[in-house]
């Protein structure tokens, strides 16, 4: 009985044959793909942008592989775009101009733990939640927990300086990356930062984190591990008005309490989520506030009671304490899958993630509902309230003619309302290709010029993820790299 079928080798030739041959010679045939299916898939991420064009795709297994790929790309005059799990919402991993795509999913080893420094060395393809699960038996976790943590990678977290519900108390990813070995856009390898208390020189590590792949590719990451608190209290509060929930958040912080997380969902999103997870979310409340405190046993009770009292003062119709870990996990599962659950209502969504001062939350929220209504689209609000980080989801069906224009117009107005309230453009999703045009609303030409100087220091020739972050006209001369789209591609 012969059960072998035709070999599954990717066929080569076609566009970029010489480049592909060099890449394959350097890192191995099975680590380079260049077929139209692969290129089509890797031209997109989780964002709504579908105008990306991927070149050959490499799956390196080591720093040396990444270095070889970058050097070959330089030699062929091609840009390089790193990619993790492709869960970004701002289009940061969208390849523009058929660059070489460096998928880091196969560099997924957890290397070693330094207990004295409370640091774990990982490769960039390690999945965020896998790392936390690996650390759990040791009493630790990786604190940044973006909603996509079950799939997103440490490399992606680093590139986007990702947030998540728990960065209110624990800080964003930049706080949790101690050092990173990076392959710079010219192929040089440098260790940025270090485990020592105050590493020498400029904080290039700090500048690199959040660079959205435009500053180089991290190939080894020293991530801070955080001891897991023995006690956790998770409160679910219901409100008859979403503004009461927002005001509760402000009042909690004003009272000197910094919860581990404070998240708000409005009624529409709560209903969609409840339908998916059956966590017992109240579907009749106008908004629910999920607040979590962690620490030691007495302190969490003191804080939880104080938060509950503040909630009631602000008009909470129900205050519920999660009974056990199981209920807690369910509540969080609901919150973290909120975006995906939208599809039950409409097939497409678009969202911004502006940050506003907490005191302005209620006001800006009210504006989002007004703006959406004026443009005839539905908005749902689910957001990291403790950080003032809004996630107004505009949901729609892209097949409806003209809807995209209305969605974008509403999105732009929401951004402007947030900035007018003293906020910033993006709390955690990044700028990518999505928000470049808005950068000039927040920064002057001089400000953007200095951001570009930072970028140019790492990437003088604009070879790393060109066409991202800075608006055109403010970024280094990356335009010529964006024009050469190979012929004969269907995308």
């Amino acid at each position, binding site marked *: 009985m012969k059960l072998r079928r035709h070999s599954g080798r990717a066929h080569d030739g076609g566009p970029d044959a010489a480049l592909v041959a060099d890449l394959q010679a350097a890192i191995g045939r099975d680590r380079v793909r260049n077929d139209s299916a692969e290129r089509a898939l890797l031209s997109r991420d989780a964002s709504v942008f579908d105008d990306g064009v991927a070149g050959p795709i490499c799956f390196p297994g080591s720093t040396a592989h990444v270095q070889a790929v970058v050097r070959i790309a330089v030699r062929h005059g091609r840009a390089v775009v790193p990619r993790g799990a492709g869960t970004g919402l701002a289009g940061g991993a969208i390849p523009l101009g058929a660059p070489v795509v460096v998928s880091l999913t196969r560099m997924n080893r957890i290397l070693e733990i330094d207990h004295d420094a409370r640091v774990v060395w990982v490769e960039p393809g390690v999945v965020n939640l896998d790392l936390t699960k690996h650390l759990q038996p040791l009493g630790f976790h990786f604190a940044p927990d973006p909603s996509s943590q079950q799939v997103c990678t440490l490399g992606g977290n680093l590139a986007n300086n990702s947030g998540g519900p728990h960065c209110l108390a624990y800080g964003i990813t930049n706080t949790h990356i101690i050092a990173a070995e990076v392959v710079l856009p010219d192929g040089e390898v440098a260790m940025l930062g270090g*485990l020592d208390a105050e590493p020498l020189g400029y904080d290039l590590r700090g500048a690199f984190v959040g660079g959205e792949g435009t500053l180089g590719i991290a190939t080894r990451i020293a991530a801070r591990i955080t001891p897991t608190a023995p006690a956790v209290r998770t409160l679910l509060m219901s409100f008859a008005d979403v503004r009461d929930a927002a005001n509760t958040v402000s009042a909690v912080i004003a009272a000197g309490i910094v919860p581990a997380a404070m998240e708000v969902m409005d009624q529409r999103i709560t209903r969609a989520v409840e339908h998916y997870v059956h966590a017992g979310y109240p579907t009749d409340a106008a908004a629910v506030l999920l607040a979590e405190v962690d620490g030691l046993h007495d302190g969490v009770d003191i804080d939880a009671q104080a938060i509950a009292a503040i909630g009631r003062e602000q008009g909470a119709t129900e205050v519920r304490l999660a009974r056990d870990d199981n209920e807690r996990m369910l509540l969080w599962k609901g919150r973290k899958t909120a975006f995906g659950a939208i599809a039950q209502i409409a097939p497409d969504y678009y969202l911004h993630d502006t940050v506003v001062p907490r005191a302005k939350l209620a006001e800006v929220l009210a504006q989002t509902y007004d703006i959406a209504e004026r443009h005839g689209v539905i908005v749902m609000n689910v957001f990291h309230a403790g950080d003032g980080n809004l996630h107004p989801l505009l949901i729609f069906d892209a097949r409806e003619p003209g809807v995209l224009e209305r969605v974008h117009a509403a999105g732009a107005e929401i951004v402007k309302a947030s900035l007018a309230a003293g906020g910033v453009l993006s709390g955690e999703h990044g700028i990518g290709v999505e928000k470049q045009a808005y950068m000039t609303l927040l920064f002057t030409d001089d400000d953007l010029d200095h951001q570009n100087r930072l970028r140019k220091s790492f990437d003088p020739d604009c070879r790393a993820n060109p066409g991202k972050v800075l608006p055109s006209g403010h970024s280094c001369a990356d335009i010529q790299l964006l024009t050469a789209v190979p012929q004969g591609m269907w995308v």
Partner: protein
Amino acid sequence: MTAPPLAADPVLAAFAAAVGVDGPVAVEGNRTRWATGGALAAGTRLVQAPTGIVHHQAEEMIVCVRAGTPMAELAAALRDRGQRCALADLGGTVGGAIAVGENHLLVLGCGTVRSSVLEVRYVSAEGRLIRGGGPTVKNVTGFDLPRLLVGSLGTLGLIAEVILRTNPLPATSVWAMAADADPFAVRDALLRPAAVLWDGDTTWVNVEGHAPDVRAQLAGLRALGSFTEVAGPPALPTHRWSLAPADLRQLDSTEMGAFVASVGVGMVFAERPQPPRTLSPAVAALSARVKANFDPTGRLNPGRAPGAR
């Protein structure tokens, strides 16, 4: 609808004018770390950064403060409203503390300087007012200029004003000391100590939080040593050594003299200075490009470079 340009603020505009557009220039604060990073080149013009707290929004956990403000003034103002920040009051100015970037002794409790500077407003080598970052804790809007400025010794831009993250003061904060404890075990036993110090014999620990939690933690510590409450940390030797936390297990007091080490952090305060550290060639080249891009004529704090001795 662009935010009002920084130049609209007469105080900032005056500072930018003082910095000017040419000639070597440096900001003079209280000179508490004047020699850090090398001697300032002769003939460098000195200017003073503007002073004063612009606003402190405790409920937003931020403070906007001008660089020339004495640290003591900032610390006192925050304390009045039940807050603190990551900058240590070592007798200097806010701008100096950020330009040097030294962390607080309680860094495990109040965070690093690098992650506490949310927005930075500085004067560039071309004499322009530049804004980087933003007023919120969560912010990934563009490249991270604040991180680059922290610890840069004024070599990339001269800081005029910053927005810092603040934090509530802990309800209780207690120092305790024991001569017979293993500092590494002490550190592992505590959930979030603000500091664990060790001089080779004696261990000091700072525990903060709600009073019942602090009491419970101190009670637990007694299993690890005969801890007694004390008023504060020991006197710290002058020189800062920056080591990896694992290095503290084999400190050599013949090399550094008497020391107090911060366990879990890697900072060591010692009698003698740390031998010079060096940047790898790749990092040195990258740093040189940063400097050249931000200060093409080399007029900002000439003679100084972060990490130089």
